[in-house]
């Protein structure tokens, strides 16, 4: 037999039927509101996601464009130009060296080398057009070319010409004339500099 505590704890009595109708009505309203809210939330979510995607793609493309354009076009162009210039300068120096050497070794062929220039005339036969270290064309006489080569330590020294060149250098150093690559004095200066560098 149950005591009064158990009897009260387990006490059951059917509720009026109308209570369920009230509860069901309230739950259904909540479900409808919940569903609408859910649909609205989904719509907002997809809209925001789409907008965010567009913004990300746009920013990404702008960022890539900014980074890639200078890297692959401007920078490459600069590098290529620098390489070409360096190559041209190197080629030019090597060519000059070859020409000068050939003149020294084969004086008879001086005229032939000079005559390779397209605009051949009387003057051009008496001068050589060579490129200075900066790539500028300079006309020199074959004799001067011999002097320049003679000043180079790589060749057997020619004391007379070296003495003469040093004298010219002293004149140039004491003068107020600024040497340029367009005149003979400049070439003398360049030859002198080269000599000093080789000594160092």
């Amino acid at each position, binding site marked *: *037999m*149950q*005591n*009064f*505590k158990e*009897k*009260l*704890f*387990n*006490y*059951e*009595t*059917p*509720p*009026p039927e109308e*209570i*369920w109708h*009230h*509860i*069901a009505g*309230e*739950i*259904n309203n*909540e*479900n409808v509101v*919940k569903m609408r809210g859910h649909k609205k939330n989904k719509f907002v979510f997809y809209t925001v996601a789409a907008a965010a995607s567009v913004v990300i793609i746009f920013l990404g493309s702008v960022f890539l464009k900014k980074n890639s354009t200078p890297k692959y076009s401007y920078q490459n162009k600069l590098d290529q130009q620098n390489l070409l210039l360096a190559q041209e300068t190197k080629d030019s120096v090597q060519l000059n060296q070859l020409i000068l050497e050939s003149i020294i070794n084969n004086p008879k062929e001086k005229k032939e080398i000079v005559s390779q220039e397209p605009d051949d005339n009387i003057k051009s036969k008496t001068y050589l057009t060579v490129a200075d270290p900066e790539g500028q064309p300079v006309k020199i006489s074959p004799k001067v070319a011999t002097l320049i080569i003679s000043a180079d330590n790589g060749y057997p020294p020619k004391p007379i010409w070296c003495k003469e060149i040093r004298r010219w250098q002293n004149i140039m150093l004491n003068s107020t004339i600024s040497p340029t690559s367009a005149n003979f004095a400049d070439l003398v200066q360049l030859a002198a500099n080269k000599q000093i560098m080789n000594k160092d």
Partner: protein
Amino acid sequence: MTYPDNQIAPENDLIKGCIDGDPQMQRLLYERFASKMYGVCVRYAENTEDANDVMQEGFIKVYRNISKFRGEGSFEGWIRRIFIHTAIEHYRKKIKLFHVTEISENTIEDDRLNALDSLAAKDILKIVNELSPGYKAVFNMHVIEGYSHKEIAEILGITEGTSKSQLARAKAVLKKIIEVRSIKIN
């Protein structure tokens, strides 16, 4: 998910169905627990109208919060606690908890209350319902539901001492009622 009238839906299916908002499962859940929970409502309520309000409010809370049930303890116990708390909230304003002189709980002999054992549940309920809402709440929570005075104090927002005093007073009142009605002690 559909269940024929003669088939009992498992508790897990009821819970899942209610979480998904399935009307059939909501109805089945109500039918399974309605009588028991209405019994709780009647014990705490002052009258039928209030019991109906607590019943309605309690079930709506169950449906709204059913996803929070983690399977710790019985599902019926979880629902019962929701109903008790709903009833207490419903009556919080009505319940006047007068501080009484602290009387030791043990001074009221439970033997006198054992006289109620011979009565039917409905008759016991009539006697208990004669208590004031404050006494009835503490009596129901401590004696019937098994809450400690500390728990009662937290739920009702009173001190443990007040809870004990209320219970002692409730038992004293019940004793008088039993004496007046000449209910024999077994």
